[in-house]
Structures are given as structure tokens and as C-alpha cells.
């Protein structure tokens, strides 16, 4: 099918605008996530959101509410899990499996058709409505403004916690605020793209961008560009092939770009 003809379809326009907004947020959040050694949290939060959605469906309320409640609750727990990456990862994993156990519990007790819950695992990017697009755009903007508001102290505290604490930067507050922003982004993004794609967008572009530039502003800019490119190409490829999922294309693109840039970076550091 002709590509330009495809672009006239409303569902494709909706998918493109919503996922571009999500991708920008995810790339910015992902940059800090990696800097703070919280990649695992980026993987855990979408899964926890799945459990929250299952709980919401069980209690007969909107899945969004469950998503937000669970991810924000978990994010606050993560922020208090300790500074050592080693210990924190284990704690994140245990919290995640506990939430998944809860999700399993809700699904086992729920006798109805839990289609919306499964949609959260695998994503429904090509079937989102106009209102969902507007909501996504607005909340992405709010998240980006939130990050911008704490940008400098957040960067400072990510780079070196001790010197930041000595200068009077509120470390704890920043850790909580950042993780809550991450949770909000994940909750919004999960409904659009599915939990898998959220993680890919959080980690892939930012990891690649970090191999090219040590300057935060340049790396964040590059990460956003990469994320936008991945989702646009991924959605178009999925629309053309019709049967293959968007998340597969985005994950493959992000892995395919990451590996060579990572290997190139290795060579660069050798030469010095």
C-alpha cells in the first residue's frame, strides 16, 4: 500500500501523535533513569502497572486509576530502597514479583473478559481514540515541564550524590519526585504502547545517546530524536506489513542502532 495514502487514515495519525509524545517523555526520563542506575525500575514499573490495571478491572473501576495507584506507590517504595544499586535491584525485583502475584490473584478471581488488562501487556497503539491522544499530549507536556523544573538539581544529584548532598540539594525529595514522574510517564505510556514498548523507549534511545555524547543536553536531545525516529519508522513499518507488531520493530531498531554505537564507543576509549 502507498505510504502517503496510509498517512491519511485517522488511526495512523492518532498512533503517530500519541506515540511521538510518549517517546519524547520516555527518552528524557530514560536519560536520568540510566544515569541513576534505575534501568531495572524502568522494567519493573510497566509490569507493576499491569498488576494495577488487573486490580482496577477486578474492582470494577477504570484501569487508569489502578495503573497510577500501583506505579506511583511502587515508585515511592523504590525511592526508599537504599542507595546501593546492588541491594536496590533485588528490592525492586521483589516488589515487582509481589505486584505480579497480586495481578495474578485479581485475574484468577475475575470471571469477566479481561481484554483491557491484556491490552496493557501487549499494547493497542493502532487503536487509540482522539480523546486518548489529547490526554496523552497534555500529560506528556506536564511531565516534560516537571522534569524541566527540577532539571539542574536532578542532573547534579544523578552525577554525584555526595557532593550534591553537601551543597544542600534535597536528594531524597529529588529521588521521590523523579520516580513519581517516571511512574506517571509509564502509566500514561503503557495504555498507548503496551508495557514492553515503554521499557524499550525508556532505555534504548537514552543508552544509545549516552554512547555518543557526555554532555547531558546533547545526549538528551539525541535520545529524543532517536526515540521519535524509532516510533515513526516502527509504526509505519507495522502499518505497511499489517500483521507485525509495532513493538517488535521499535525494539529491533533500538537494539540494531545500540550495538554498533556501543562497539564504536569501546574502540574510542581504547584509543585514548
Amino acid at each position, binding site marked *: 500500500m502507498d505510504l502517503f495514502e496510509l498517512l491519511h487514515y485517522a488511526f495512523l495519525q492518532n498512533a503517530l501523535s500519541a506515540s511521538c509524545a510518549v517517546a519524547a517523555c520516555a527518552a528524557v526520563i530514560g536519560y536520568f533513569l*540510566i544515569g541513576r*542506575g534505575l*534501568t*531495572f525500575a*524502568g*522494567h519493573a514499573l510497566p*509490569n507493576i502497572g499491569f498488576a494495577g490495571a488487573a486490580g482496577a478491572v477486578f474492582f470494577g473501576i477504570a484501569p487508569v486509576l489502578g495503573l497510577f495507584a500501583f506505579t506511583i506507590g511502587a515508585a515511592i517504595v523504590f525511592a526508599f530502597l537504599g542507595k*546501593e*544499586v*546492588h541491594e536496590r*535491584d*533485588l*528490592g*525492586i*525485583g*521483589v*516488589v*515487582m*514479583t*509481589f505486584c*505480579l*502475584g*497480586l495481578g*495474578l*490473584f485479581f*485475574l*484468577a*478471581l475475575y470471571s469477566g473478559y*479481561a*481484554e483491557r488488562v*491484556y491490552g496493557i*501487556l*501487549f499494547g493497542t497503539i493502532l487503536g487509540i481514540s482522539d480523546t486518548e491522544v489529547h490526554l496523552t499530549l497534555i500529560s506528556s507536556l506536564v511531565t516534560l515541564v516537571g522534569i524541566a523544573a527540577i532539571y539542574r538539581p536532578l542532573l547534579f544529584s544523578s552525577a554525584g550524590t555526595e557532593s550534591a548532598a553537601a551543597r544542600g540539594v534535597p536528594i531524597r525529595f529529588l529521588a521521590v519526585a523523579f520516580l513519581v514522574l517516571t511512574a506517571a510517564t509509564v502509566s500514561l505510556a503503557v495504555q498507548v504502547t*503496551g508495557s*514492553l514498548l515503554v*521499557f*524499550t523507549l525508556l*532505555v*534504548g534511545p537514552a*543508552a544509545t545517546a*549516552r554512547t555518543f555524547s557526555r554532555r547531558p543536553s546533547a545526549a538528551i536531545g539525541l535520545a529524543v530524536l532517536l526515540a521519535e525516529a524509532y516510533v515513526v519508522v516502527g509504526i509505519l513499518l507495522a502499518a505497511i506489513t499489517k*500483521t*507485525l*507488531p509495532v*513493538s*517488535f*520493530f*521499535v*525494539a*529491533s531498531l*533500538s*537494539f540494531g542502532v*545500540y*550495538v554498533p554505537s*556501543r562497539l564504536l564507543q569501546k574502540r574510542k576509549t581504547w584509543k585514548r
Partner: protein
Amino acid sequence: MEEIIKSEIFRNAFFGGSLTAVLCAAVGYFMVLRALAFASEALTDIGFAGATGSALLGLTPFWGMLGLSLLAVLTLGALRDRLKGRDVEVGMVLSFALGLGVLFLSLYSHSSGTHASSGVRILFGSLMSLSGSLLLVLTLVAVIVLLILAATFRPLLFASVDPSSARAKGVPTKALDYAFLVLLAATTVVSIQAIGILLAFALISAPAGAAHKLTRNPGLAFLAALLLGLGITWSGIFLAFFGPWSRIPVGVYIATFSALIYGLALLRDRFRIRSRPEACRHNEREIHE
């Protein structure tokens, strides 16, 4: 009650569960020492891609999962010799594997006409549906892994706790790193078959993590991990079979008890450190790091 205990479903669940618990706790202890939590969680999700891929090709899920996990482990090892603290590479391999899993799942549901939600069953496997033949394969893999672990116990412990002195003393740390990742992959595949992808990580991480918090003596901690793992699994199986809520799957109990035990161990550890004088606490931290 006697009838249930004599039934084949209960026997298989009990035997498979105990096997998984011992295997997970033993391998999990070294996983905790090596700080491979994220890699281990990634391996369970990579199993998802393996399971869906083998469903597409018409293979037994076991071999597809084992193949893909080993491939992932070798990739991870090649990307970085020490995985500790570098979780970005793990994340990248994980997201790619999940992408493949979703691809396989969608291809499978297109070709077989089933809905994508059938993949959810792969995510939450069950002890209740273990067949005798599968159990035989799982036992075989578990025994091999445990034998290798027993044979390399001392050098593996040394290399996990203090890699640089182990290397200086001539312990082949790099070979052990790879070997351990392979053991971890095999363990993951076995436990996925038993309690499902999303919860396999609970049995690998929580008993060992709690035991590591309770005592610093490696022998004692190893033993404690085994006992905790068995305790969690047995009480889960017992409640699932004889508990008042028959619709609740074993995985729910296992995940809840795991989190509870790890949480309690964490609290106890925090409390113990707080109750000592500052200087002592400082020394302790240095020794641990």
C-alpha cells in the same frame, strides 16, 4: 485430604515445586552475591520469547527457552565481562528479546487463529499442570546444575565475593562468570516451567536475598536460602491445595510469601544496623563494600 496427597497432580506439583525451590535458592545465592538481579529477571523474560518462538515452530517450549536463554547469556557475556552495576546492556538485550517474543506471539496467533491473550498462559505457568515426562527433564537439568554448583562451590564463592583476589590467586574468574550465567539460564528455564515466567524471579531472588541479609556466613546463608525457598514453596502448595480459596493459583502465595520474607529480613537488617554505634556501622559498611 489423603486422596489429594495420593493424586498424581499433587505429587508432581510437590516434587516439581521442591526441586525448583532448592535449585533456585542454591543458584540464587550466588546471583545475590554477584549482584545479577536484573540479568536474572531479564533471563526469565527472555524465556517468554523462547516459549513463544518454539510454539511458532512447533517445538517443545523447554528447548526453545533453553536455546534462547543460552544465546542471551553469551551475548551478555560478550557485551561485558563483569555485569555488575552495568544494567544498560542487560536492558537492551531484554527489550530486544521481548520484541522478538511479541513478534512470535503475534505470528503464532495469526497462524493458529488463537488470540494473543493465550500467550498470557505462558506468562503464568502452573505447578498444577506439570506432566510426568516434563518433570523428568526438569529433574535431569536440575541435578546437572546442582552437581556443577557443588563441584565449583569454593572457587565460585571466592570469585563471587572477591573477584580481584580470586584472579590473583589463579582462579579462572572469567570462565566462572560464563559458567555461572549458563547455570542461571538453566535454572530460570526450569523454574519458568514450574511456576511461570512472571513469578520465577520470586523464587530465585527472595529466599537468597533474605538469607544474605540474615547472616554473612556463606555456609549458613546458603542453608538458610534453601530452607526459606522450600518453606515458601511448601506453604504455597499446601494453601493452594487445601486452603479455603480454591481459585487462587500457587503463584500468588509464592509471590506473597517471598515478598513477606524478604521484607522482614530487610527490616531486621535495618533495625540491627541502627541499634549499633555509629563507628561500628561505618566499619560494617566498608567491610560489605
